[in-house]
């Protein structure tokens, strides 16, 4: 078991006197107490053999939305927002859960989706050969399942700019599987995905999902998977391409967790919005690396809790403007789910530019 060799890191987290670890959206919005300290304490008891992988203990390990990246670690000017990979022990804990055959039913369902359809959501797709072009645009499975309009806007923009591109719109990149502890399947899917990317011959890979950009930039090399290409978030690439647009209205921007806290990219989307004629950007009080999260990626066990987190973020954004622009399919899905009740409109940055 991986956890039994992680006593020091677990103890270090469980006996944590550094107060800001607890400002977790699930604690703040939902009110449950599975803070990093307490979850580490529970994991420590499992690693030491005092507890087994019973369903409630397993649920504590799957409690974080996105392996705690969503935590807003440092909300004032006393230092940079914390942006390291906080999944250092809870991802191995989930891998132990899976290895012990104790994965929750919803994780098993996602695993089954991937095994039968090749993607997280069970979308009926047949893998086909990827076309070749200097630029590869990836419409990831969250975009295909929950925000296909972003992919349409991206393809429109790239074509409009005369960009020689091809699209990869199949399979799954494996990152979510890795996060959930399905490490073997994650590696298998990542290897397949990297093969498709390489087969495109692209020198530039563009994705509108920041988690995918992070996985391709950081996780794939750690797995030994080479891409032979520069990987860019769509906000970075569209800015580089010099795309301009027209959009009449006052908008605010929601920084997705992976884009701001993992990739540290807060300027590109704003610079891009600055190139949109007629658009007025009204910043939300909490922005950039200090933006509160909109909710989970594709994978989380409780939709009600996820909605509470989205609602809190939507309320913050609504103080700035009625139109919310974001730059991740999961953020768009999360916020769109609570937008109507608040009279908000949620758009991806690509949709704004394609207007």
């Amino acid at each position, binding site marked *: 078991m991986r956890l039994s060799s992680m006593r020091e890191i677990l103890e270090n987290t469980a006996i944590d006197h550094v107060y800001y670890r607890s*400002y977790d959206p699930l604690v*703040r919005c939902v*009110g*449950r107490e599975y803070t990093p300290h*307490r979850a580490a304490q529970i994991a420590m008891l499992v690693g030491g053999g005092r507890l087994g992988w019973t369903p409630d*203990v397993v649920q504590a390990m799957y409690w974080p939305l996105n392996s705690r990246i969503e935590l807003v670690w440092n909300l004032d000017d006393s230092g940079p927002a914390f942006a390291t990979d906080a999944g250092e022990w809870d991802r191995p804990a989930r891998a132990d859960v899976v290895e012990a055959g104790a994965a929750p039913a919803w994780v098993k369902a996602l695993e089954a989706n991937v095994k039968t359809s090749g993607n997280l959501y069970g979308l009926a797709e047949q893998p086909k050969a990827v076309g070749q072009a200097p630029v590869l645009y990836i419409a990831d499975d969250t975009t295909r399942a929950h925000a296909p309009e972003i992919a349409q806007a991206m393809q429109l923009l790239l074509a409009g700019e005369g960009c020689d591109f091809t699209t990869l719109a199949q399979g799954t990149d494996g990152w979510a599987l890795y996060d959930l502890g399905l490490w073997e399947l994650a590696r298998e899917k990542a290897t397949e995905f990297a093969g498709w990317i390489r087969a495109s011959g692209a020198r530039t890979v563009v994705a509108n999902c920041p988690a995918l950009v992070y996985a391709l930039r950081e996780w794939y090399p750690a797995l030994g998977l080479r891409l032979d290409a520069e990987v860019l978030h769509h906000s970075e690439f569209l800015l580089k391409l010099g795309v301009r647009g027209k959009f009449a209205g006052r908008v605010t921007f929601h920084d997705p967790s992976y884009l701001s806290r993992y990739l540290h990219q807060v300027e590109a989307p704003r610079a891009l919005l600055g190139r949109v004629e007629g658009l007025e950007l009204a910043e939300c009080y909490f922005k950039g690396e200090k933006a509160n999260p909109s909710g989970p990626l594709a994978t989380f066990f409780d939709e009600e809790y996820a909605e509470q987190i989205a609602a809190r973020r939507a309320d913050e954004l609504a103080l700035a403007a009625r139109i919310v622009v974001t730059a991740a399919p999961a953020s768009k899905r999360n916020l769109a789910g609570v937008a109507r009740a608040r009279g908000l409109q949620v758009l991806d940055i690509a949709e704004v530019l394609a207007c």
Partner: protein
Amino acid sequence: MTTALSLDAALARGEAIQVDPILLTQLEAVVGNKNVATSIADLICYSHDIMPPAFKWVRRDDLPYLPHMVVFPGSTRDVQEIVKIAHYNRIPVVPAGGTSGTIGGILPVCGGIVVDMKRMNRLVDLDPYSLTVTVEAGMLGQDYEDQLNMRGFIGGHYPQSIRCSAVGGWIGPRGVGTFSTKYGKIEDIVQSLEVVLADGSVARTKNVPRASCGPDLDQLFIGSEGTLGIITQATLRIWPKPAKREWVSYGMPSFEAGVHACRDLMAEGIYPAVARLYDEIEGAGALKELGYAEAAGKEHPLYFGCEGRADLTDLEVKVVHECCRAQGGVERPGFGERWWRKRYDTTFLKKAYMLPNGIGDAIECSATYKNLTAMHDAMLEAIHVQGAHEVFGHGSHFYPTGGNLYIIWSAFAADEKEIESKYWRVMDAAMKAVLSVDGSIGHHHGIGVNKGPWIHLDQPTAWPVVQQIKAALDPLGIMNPGKLGL
């Protein structure tokens, strides 16, 4: 009355903790199935706060106090119904907020029901004209401040635990924020309360700035640590965002000279938001870090954070300089800014907990100006005698008539069990040292189980009154038993 459930006992009873099925059904009927927890993972979450000996339990995988269940109310009505059920069944009720306390205030020492208030996190009303806000008691501190900041206001209450403490948890132990000299302790900020009493009835005090209508019941419940009722809602003072903040830092020739400077400043009617004075031991590291190595071990850093209207802030700064210089201070820029950057850093204490057979604490106490220096010296001496590895201190809150001290210490022993005994010996010596100079054993952490053994010595003639109030309001003794020495 029930007894606490230990981890061993819980494990022996299997994954599904056996709870009275009728009680469980009744509670689920109030808050819904999803908001009643009896699983081992949930119970572990409420097995400790950050009271130092509790970290030793965590290291040993030994959790002596688990509740029997946890309930998550969503409204005052829910809390009323939960307490009525507990009252009928004579089951202890332990309110919990951010679980960040340092005195074991949430330890379910008699088992029972933990009432986690964090679902009650709504901003109920903001009155920008009267400068008050009403919030539910489970709102986390940082969330509270965020909500105010987004609307152009501040709460003025910034405890080190702000990110993981709840508003109710500030009020329960009579807490303080680091900007207390200007904005006050929590008892100065609270303007009215809603409290669910032991029989399930609710008491609401009036939202007015002052009144002459009998005893101030807010002040009865503030600091009662859940022993008299559960605070469900509070109306608090707020302030417009200050236009300016400026730090002023000095090296003082002695601790006493620093105390004099603070006293003189308050006597002039100047109340900077932040006022902090360090002894030469604790201040040495900062002096070296800021390039004043020659002063390390000799000078006593004293700094102030002044904020508010720009012209008033400038005046405050001017008087601060005058008072510090009059006591022989040498201006040493940088301390205030350094503290601001590191204000959440408690690495020193964590190191002590993490080391095998180590422990430490930051004991807070208060005294009038004439006794502050003597209290500092008496506590250092008493803790040294108990074999502490390190001990030093600072004052971090000053008022017109006196201030507080934080005495920070670490110690080691032969093994993890022995270090717990040593902890309590140090606490005993420290508490008696405070009392020997007419100090108060608690300034803002509260009493909980941590200082319970000494509370009757703190105010020997007045404490029986509190005991009588407890007996009147909670005759069955179900409200957070074992805390406040009650």
